[in-house]
């Protein structure tokens, strides 16, 4: 027969926050000005890479307070990418402390709760949801200008939960990452539909791994070919913005592995230029949003 709550759980009702919890989350997230989710239907397209670069990019303005929340419970890449492997989370009276990369850039991930790099988090949905709620409720983020949420691939528990829990606060929108080929785009279209379903605005799409220029002969190769028109065509068809295209650059992977900021390590790379343009467009979108909200008030 199984658990008597199985129909509730399958329908998602069990994850709905009760009014008390919703109020608690709203209080905690009151001091967050802008929230951006980084999504993709597809794995391995560069969500975490982009989240890390976005975080560094936004935190370059020392006047801004940036928070990076990694809700990929099974595959938490953010600690390594931010050079924070091996760091632990500390508790204080006001909750869990994020781990700070810079004074104005704090990070939280399940990676900080694991004692060994071999530790696997083999959890079913409900337990993952519980941790995500804790990340939002119990972490003492303080006042933040930008909360960036890095997600795992897919459209499942983590995604439903984060949208549900953050509805207590406010999400500016989602940045969706893809690579040019159809096998990615078909998953990304599903993700865009998910966003529409849960009424999550789509800030735009980033086409990552968009071509490779050989460092020796300077010829371009389409390693992940845009056989169906790439992100550009998909964005046209689905009426969402294409925020930009980022070429492959071996330095990106290297920076991520070393936990360094790619933007600082390779300031002249064409990929850096693309990333910077994209980050600016996201900032502009968030500022417009804020302005509109103020107008309403």
């Amino acid at each position, binding site marked *: 027969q199984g658990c008597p709550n199985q129909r509730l*759980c*399958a329908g*998602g009702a069990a994850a709905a926050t009760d009014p008390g919890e919703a109020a608690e989350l709203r209080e905690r997230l009151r001091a967050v000005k802008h929230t951006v989710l980084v999504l993709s*239907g*597809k*794995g*391995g*397209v560069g969500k975490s890479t982009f989240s890390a670069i976005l975080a560094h990019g936004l935190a370059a303005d020392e006047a801004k307070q940036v928070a990076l929340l990694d809700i990929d*419970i*099974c*595959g938490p*890449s953010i600690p*390594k990418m931010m050079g924070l492997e091996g760091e632990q989370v500390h508790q204080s009276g006001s909750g869990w402390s994020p781990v700070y990369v810079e004074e104005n850039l704090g990070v939280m991930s399940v990676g900080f709760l694991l004692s060994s*790099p*071999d*530790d*696997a*988090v*083999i*959890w*079913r*949905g*409900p337990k993952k949801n519980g941790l995500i709620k804790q990340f939002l409720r119990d972490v003492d983020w303080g006042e933040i200008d930008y909360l960036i949420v890095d997600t*795992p*691939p*897919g*459209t*499942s*528990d983590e*995604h*439903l939960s984060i949208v549900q829990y953050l509805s207590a606060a406010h999400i500016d929108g989602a940045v969706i990452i893809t*690579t040019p*080929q*159809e*096998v990615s785009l*078909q*998953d990304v*279209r*599903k993700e865009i*539909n*998910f966003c529409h379903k849960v009424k999550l605005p789509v800030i735009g799409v980033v086409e990552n791994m968009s071509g*490779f220029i*050989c*460092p*020796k*002969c300077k*010829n371009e*190769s*389409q*390693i*992940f*070919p845009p*056989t*169906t028109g790439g992100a550009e065509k998909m964005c046209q068809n689905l009426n969402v913005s294409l925020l930009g295209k980022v070429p*492959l650059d*071996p330095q990106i*992977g*290297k920076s*991520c*592995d070393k936990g360094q900021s790619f933007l600082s390590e390779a300031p002249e790379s064409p990929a850096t230029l693309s990333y910077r343009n994209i980050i600016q467009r996201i900032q502009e979108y968030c500022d417009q949003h804020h302005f509109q909200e103020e107008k309403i008030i």
Partner: protein
Amino acid sequence: LTEKSNLAGVRHILLVLSGKGGVGKSTISTELALSLRHSGKKVGILDVDLSGPSIPCMFRVQDNDVHQCDSGWVPVFVDQDKSISLMSIGFLLEKPDDAVVWRGPKKNALIKQFVADVAWGDLDFLIVDTPPGTSDEHISTVEALRPYKPLGAILVTTPQAVSVGDVRRELTFCKKTGLRVLGIVENMSGFVCPHCSECTNIFSKGGGEELAKHAGVPFLGCVPLDPQLSQSLEEGRDFIQEFPKSSAFPALTHIAQQILDGTSQRSS
């Protein structure tokens, strides 16, 4: 009266896993199936990635429907030959852009059905392609397959540390669930420029091989980035048949050969 299980005619079951997304699990599953077919084997692929089912497109059968028979669902055959058959949620979606936004329990229920209710018939190999991670789909799949004693799992990684970091966790998952690791594949390992033959390690190099050494599991080989392979998959073509001179061909066929050698060793 006990019904004959739908997996009774399947000789070997192997899973393709990774902790990490986008490393090439579906690609390796597809190319392994094609290689094994070229060695005269009958192969099935069970795609348990419910959020991002890639397998149907890789064989260009995404518009096919699934039919029922007395013993359950009839898998989709890739061609007249009927030497490769597939099952995926991709075939069950009304519209391909529909998002499958299910929580764990509903996913688990479908996976149980996929394992028990597909009328595979006689197969030499059933390859189970999985989504990234170590969660509902993986727990349910391993639990449902346990009575049928799977051969083991192939773990796919890309060379860089960020991928290897996730695949280490997948190795722990295999240990904890008693799943034998047949070996590790290091995919996207180097790119040889088709214009000038310069090799660039776009996603670094060597991480998969080192991990295999460190974990004491077989290393099945490095597969380079190959635009012809990507193109083949986009078009649902048989890469093994059509591109024997392409850069990824030797590594992919070598992986299949090691699997075949492994199974013949076990039978003798």
